């Protein structure tokens, strides 16, 4: 790649969290002036490796060299001194500080120690901001800024410190397509100015668009480092998912290995994973009549929705976020009290009944906000799995919860659902996003649901986890469960749904049968084209 020493070289990095080996002799080499993609699924160790580089985690073994010289990085301060900057997935900002205050925090400033003078730094920030195309008002209070701008602040923080290597951890997750293009342009400018940029991602398309080289990680190890010109999306996907089947890999992954045509296309993933399942029977397994629900601000968000679902049917609900999906899902799940209307499952009317009866009717809900609504982050995996089944006879003894049995069940779920956790006693909040979703699914399926409500179930998940979710959904429908799938991913909806409806402004505005979906028409319908007012 180049004659000079690599900008960064990490060798034999090992990091263990209790019995889990998150990094197993991981390697990474980044050349000067390149954008290097760090690719891998959830839990592959990408972020862990970068946290080691940034001094947030202390490696158990391994060496790091920057520009050919070995360095010891025991804290973020060491990393900054070594010219390494990192933009985390969740921004590390002081909400109540201004942009400039956030950027200069922790640096030495000109002028006397007893007087804070931010006029020079402010100019510097403005200068950096225009040079790299990272537009931001240096005087704005950070908590008032939208996500895209806060990310620019985070990048400027690193640039202000004159970093030579900039790590970006999944930077595109919350950006609009336009913002992603801008970000990639800024990254190119940085490289032109002599920086090296490491882009952590699980999106193959992104690395192909932005990176010069990419390193693929799996199970805490480097699998391959390839140049963009010498590879393509299919090859990368194959490496990422792993053709070899090692122990502990769920069946979903086995199926996924066969999928290499176009892994960005969810539809193909599903097609290949679809098992035989019975035709939907028993229309009316789930009946919703004229449901009206108010949102948190008292505004009617769901305005008279009615539908009927059969056993084993998947009903997809397409819509732009904020058109009543959350309120609808919560009302049907029994979490939110509707204004009026009926929800009945297999003949039982449930509106107004206590939660216990909803559970008895076997309604399971996988909410959109995994961390906030899905799990209790400060409780253990076992405790999270028990929630909702605390009255189940399997784990009760003499009126109390039999924790031994509960932990036993949790351990089984951890194995069945391939949850990467330090056993049943690991804290849910310490798991990665994909693993949290597995915990939620494990809990939902433990109820053998007759109605499963999924809201954006695969958002932010890697391919293998996505595949896994689809597998589980099909397994549930095969057992007669009706599935209400609310998603913003149209490919996912088209691929999974037996029937697709669009929701706009709290009302259903279109319906398509499986195989007859016109994506353009669905898109227009979601946008409210043809709907009055």
């Amino acid at each position, binding site marked *: 790649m180049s004659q000079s020493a690599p900008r960064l070289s990490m060798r034999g990095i090992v990091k263990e969290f209790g019995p889990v080996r998150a990094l197993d002799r991981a390697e990474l080499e980044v050349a000067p002036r390149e954008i290097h993609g760090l690719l891998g699924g959830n839990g592959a160790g990408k972020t862990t490796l970068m946290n080691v580089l940034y001094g947030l985690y202390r490696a158990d073994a391994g060496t790091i060299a920057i520009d050919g010289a070995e360095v010891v990085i025991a804290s973020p301060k060491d990393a900054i001194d070594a010219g390494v900057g990192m933009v985390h997935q969740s921004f590390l900002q*002081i909400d109540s500080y201004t942009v400039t205050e*956030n950027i200069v925090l922790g640096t030495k400033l000109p002028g006397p120690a007893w007087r804070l003078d931010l006029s020079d730094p402010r100019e510097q920030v403005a200068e950096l901001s225009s040079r790299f195309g990272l537009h931001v008002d240096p005087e704005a209070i950070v908590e008032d800024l939208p996500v895209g701008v806060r990310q620019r602040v985070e990048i400027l923080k690193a640039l202000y410190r004159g970093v030579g290597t900039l790590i970006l951890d999944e930077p595109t997750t919350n950006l609009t397509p336009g913002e992603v293009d801008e970000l990639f342009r800024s990254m190119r400018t940085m490289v032109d100015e002599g920086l090296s940029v490491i882009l952590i991602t699980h999106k193959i398309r992104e690395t192909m668009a932005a990176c010069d080289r990419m390193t693929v990680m799996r199970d805490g190890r480097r699998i391959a480092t390839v140049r963009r010109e010498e590879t393509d999306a299919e090859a990368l996907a194959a490496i990422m998912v792993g053709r070899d089947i090692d122990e502990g890999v769920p069946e979903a992954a086995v199926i996924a290995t066969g999928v290499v045509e176009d892994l960005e296309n969810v539809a193909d993933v599903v097609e290949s994973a679809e098992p035989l399942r019975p035709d939907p029977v028993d229309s009316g397994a789930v009946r919703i009549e004229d449901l009206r629900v108010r949102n948190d601000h008292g505004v009617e968000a769901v305005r008279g929705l009615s539908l009927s679902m059969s056993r084993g049917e998947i009903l997809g609900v397409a819509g732009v976020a904020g058109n009543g999906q959350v309120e609808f899902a919560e009302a049907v799940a029994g979490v939110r009290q509707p204004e009026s209307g009926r929800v009945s499952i297999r003949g039982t009317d449930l509106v107004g009944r206590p939660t216990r009866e909803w559970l008895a009717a076997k309604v399971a809900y996988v909410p959109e906000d995994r961390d906030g609504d899905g799990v209790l982050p400060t409780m253990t995996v076992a405790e999270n799995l028990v929630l909702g089944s605390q009255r189940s006879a399997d784990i009760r003894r003499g009126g109390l919860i039999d924790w031994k049995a509960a932990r036993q069940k949790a351990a089984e779920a951890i194995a069945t659902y391939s949850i990467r956790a330090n056993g049943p006693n690991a804290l849910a909040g310490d798991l990665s996003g994909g693993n949290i979703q597995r915990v939620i699914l494990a809990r939902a399926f433990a109820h053998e649901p007759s109605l499963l409500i999924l809201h954006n179930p695969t958002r932010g998940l890697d391919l293998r986890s996505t595949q896994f979710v689809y597998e589980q959904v099909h397994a549930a429908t095969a057992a007669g469960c009706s599935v209400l799938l609310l998603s913003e991913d149209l490919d996912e909806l088209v691929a999974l749904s037996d029937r697709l409806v669009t929701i706009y402004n709290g009302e259903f505005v279109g319906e398509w049968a499986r195989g007859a979906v016109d994506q353009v028409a669905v898109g227009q319908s979601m946008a409210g084209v043809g709907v009055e007012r």
Partner: protein
Amino acid sequence: MNEIAEFVALVLPAMVPFVLAAQGTVLSGRAGVFNVSQEGLMVLGAAVGFLVSYSVGSNAVGVFVAAAVAGLFGLILGVMTTNWRLDQFIVGLALYFAALGLASLLYRVAVGTTLEPPLIPTLESYPIPLLSKIPYLGEMFFDHDLLVYTAFVLSGLLFWFMYRTNAGLRFRACGENPRSADSLGVNVARTRIVASVLGASLVGVAGAYLPMVYTGTFTEGMVAGRGWLVIALAFLGGWRPQYILAGAAFFAGMEVLALRAQVAGIGIPHQFVLMLPYIATLVVMMFAFRWARQPRFLGQNYDRESRLAG
């Protein structure tokens, strides 16, 4: 006019324990350490301050030793919560009881039970030249003991440090978002420990002030809940030194008023007047959301390798 001047002149010294202890609480709190042992530390400060000045014969030495002893408690709090990540509230509560017990023990051992309790001289007043000669204003503001002036100057310095220096920017970051501060090379643990020590020292001085200004004696009940009030005061003042002064004036005003009500025997029970500061705090917490903001990570320990916080 004369009565007002007299009232203000009484309120200022009454403010001192509130100001010192509350600024100490703010100092620790803005770095993220929520000390709840103020009541105990004030009693201990009072006992130590009294005993040392009694045996050495110098109030100044008494004040410094009280600061050092309370600072030691702050060190324990700091180390236990930052290095060992023990729950701040539990540790604080334990320190409260420990300090309370230690104060009685020290006094019993040194003095024992006597019919004639030992006395120390109360603090002399240092009228400020020229300023104290201004009619009314001089009597109100410029004819007090040194700790009164100190409390005010200290509040100003604390404000300046927190909002007008680069070090203050780093300091506040430890309480607002320690993960962010850490990621930028700020030593969160050290900052928090230092803040905890200095904050506790101020609380100790606040306690030592009590025997030195009012009675010249030490009694176990002399702090009389001021330590708990101080926690309310920190919230009331939105954890900002400038508003702490205003809040302290209000609390001290109520205290003086209650005392007068008791002496003058007016219709309102003095216990009711003593309740007012608490009610005011509740009202402020209920209605003034913007005002009543507090450090976001107040009382929360920081663990670099945990994914839970921050």
